């Protein structure tokens, strides 16, 4: 697969260069031109994580002077290093973006050392100044803010006051999305509870469908999720007549009747920032992270499942988040009764990245 792509790309590049040379004789790329290489772990149209990145790259291509080279379905093995290296050597990429967790170490770390003139950025908070090269870095969005807005809309769109959450694994980013969703729902609807089901892995379509069925059978009338491809969850919930909130990318087309809104990344902001800085020859930040206050996350446009009250409250919540109003207002207990958050934390506080508990109001257990 990757071999095929490389040869196709080099072929195209060869012919393009030949055409340009033949037409103008001397013209070469202008100094301000920026080439961005991006590598995805799955298909670009998965209604999830990869699609969110691909949508941003599509927007980036509309900018003048910016070229993007993409490669999808690249596993977290040596294959990703080869793809990235070919983007540097064949496409003269100025910056290479790796969007999957496992690309970082050792592949991107080694490439950054080998090609010190090229910038490498990775979509997870793994970079640290004392361990890694300076032309490497991390970027990520606080998606839990999107889930908080989802929670607010869901809390005002439910009739049974039971909200279902299909989650893959109990790691901190997932737990933070579940807790934020619950806090949003509780804020507008004190009777709301969030019932969580962990499937155990990132992509298990049959078990995800079973989980949705089990949640709906237990009385949940709004379903949301944090799994790799939310397609199965959203479609199954729609079939069962439950409302849905999305995750990662917009799943609105999958649920014409019950879609409320969804938590989405806005990678466009990151990628445009990189392209602009590179075009001007400015240094890139090693760490680029934020939420609504930095326009780095967003919510999908409201679907038919959202009530008027939900739309109004969610819109207010978005304005609050942009004004940096905190989500985690302490003290808060976990669902076993222990106080785990003693004070009010800022939305980007590193303390919240270490989450290993489900808050009171969430029915579920991380073990």
């Amino acid at each position, binding site marked *: 697969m990757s071999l095929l792509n490389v040869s196709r790309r080099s072929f195209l590049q060869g012919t393009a260069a030949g055409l340009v040379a033949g037409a103008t004789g001397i013209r070469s790329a202008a100094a301000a031109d920026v080439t961005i290489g991006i590598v995805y772990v*799955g*298909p670009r*149209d*998965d*209604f999830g994580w990869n699609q969110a990145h691909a949508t941003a790259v599509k927007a980036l291509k509309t900018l003048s002077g910016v070229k993007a080279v993409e490669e999808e*379905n690249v596993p977290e093995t040596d294959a990703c290093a080869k793809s990235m290296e070919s983007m540097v050597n064949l496409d003269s990429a100025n910056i290479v973006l790796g969007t999957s967790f496992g690309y970082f170490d050792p592949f991107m770390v080694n490439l950054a050392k080998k090609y010190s003139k090229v910038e490498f950025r990775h979509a997870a908070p793994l970079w640290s100044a004392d361990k890694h090269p300076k032309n490497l870095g991390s970027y990520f969005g606080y998606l839990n803010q999107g889930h908080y807005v989802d929670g607010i809309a869901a809390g005002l769109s439910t009739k*049974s006051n*039971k909200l*279902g959450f299909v989650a893959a694994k109990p790691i901190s980013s997932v737990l933070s999305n579940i807790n934020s969703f619950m806090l949003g729902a509780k804020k507008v609807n004190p009777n709301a509870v969030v*019932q*969580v*089901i*962990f*499937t*155990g892995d990132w*992509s*298990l*379509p*049959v*078990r*995800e*469908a*079973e*989980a949705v*069925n*089990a*949640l*709906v*059978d*237990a*009385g*949940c009338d709004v379903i949301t999720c944090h799994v*790799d*491809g939310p*397609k*199965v969850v959203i*479609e*199954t919930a729609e*079939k*069962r007549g439950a409302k849905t909130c999305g995750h990662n990318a917009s799943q609105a087309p*999958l649920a014409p009747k019950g879609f409320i809104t969804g938590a989405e990344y806005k990678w466009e902001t990151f990628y445009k920032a990189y392209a602009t800085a590179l075009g001007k020859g400015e240094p890139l930040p090693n760490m680029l992270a934020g939420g609504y206050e930095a326009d780095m996350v967003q919510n999908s446009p409201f679907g038919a499942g959202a009530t008027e009250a939900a739309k109004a409250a969610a819109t207010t919540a978005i304005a609050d988040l942009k004004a940096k109003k905190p989500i985690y207002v302490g003290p808060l207990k976990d669902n076993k009764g222990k106080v785990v958050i003693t004070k009010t934390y800022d939305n980007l506080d590193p303390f919240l990245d270490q989450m290993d508990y489900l808050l009171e109001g969430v*029915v*579920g*257990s991380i*073990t």
Partner: protein
Amino acid sequence: MSGDSPFIIVLLAIVGGALRVSTPFMFVALGECLTEKSGRVNLGLEGTLVLGAMCAYAISFHSGSPWLGVLAAGCAGSLLGAIHGYVCKLPRVNDIAIGIAMMLFGTGLAFFFGKAYIQPSAPRLESFSLGAWTGNQQIETALQINPLLLVGVVVAIAMSWAFANTKWGLIVRMTGDSAPAARAMGVSVDMVRFLSTTAGGFLAGVGGAFLSLFYPGSWNQGLSSGQGLMAVALVIFARWDPIRCAFAALLFGATGAIGPALQSVGITQGYYFFNAAPYILTLLVMIASAGSKQAARNVPGELSITK
């Protein structure tokens, strides 16, 4: 709905799970049962399942008829089965190794051609409910039955009958138990195995159609997540008996529903353990049944894994 007792909810989920999840297992297990009865092992059925799922979805999308998709899935499956059946008759070819190669080939092919079908929505198979008379929406949903499940049950019964009562059944069993005996009777061993593997591939392909056209009912690359391999193991579990294959598939589907169902009623501790329920149960039944002399007698004598 929330007034129902947790026990009823879990019970309904288990029954519903058996009816929803078991069909692909059943088809793949029946296909593999036929192939192994003829004395060959086809480990490639995972690939067949995935390719069947992709073809069914694609054809249903283009033609607008899901049943045409099911047929296409079966044909794609028989093609993979035929390749396996043909290659394995060549001298010094190991059927296990070819099976693994065919598994990778099938999934690779499905991913390559399936790219364009991740986004579009294809018409799905219709189902009917055995619980409509109760007027209870929950029971009605749990008892949703797809016609393919019934087809699977009929195939299981027909296969079981044919093995015991027809000349064709006898030929397949004889080829599987003793190739020299079959040759002495003037039967072409290679031809019997080729046809059995092809027919087995057809069934596995149809199992794939169920995945993409009914439950979970969409095409994506992680769709099967190893179900084809588990179904091959189920044949050993069912000791090469089609009827037992059908029951094993139902049992596997039912236990698979335990994990999510328990979490949905608030029994949340230890979900990794409950999610492993199907595998634990399989192990226990295997241990309990493997000791008997009857079990050893059921194994086709020509299988390369037992020879």
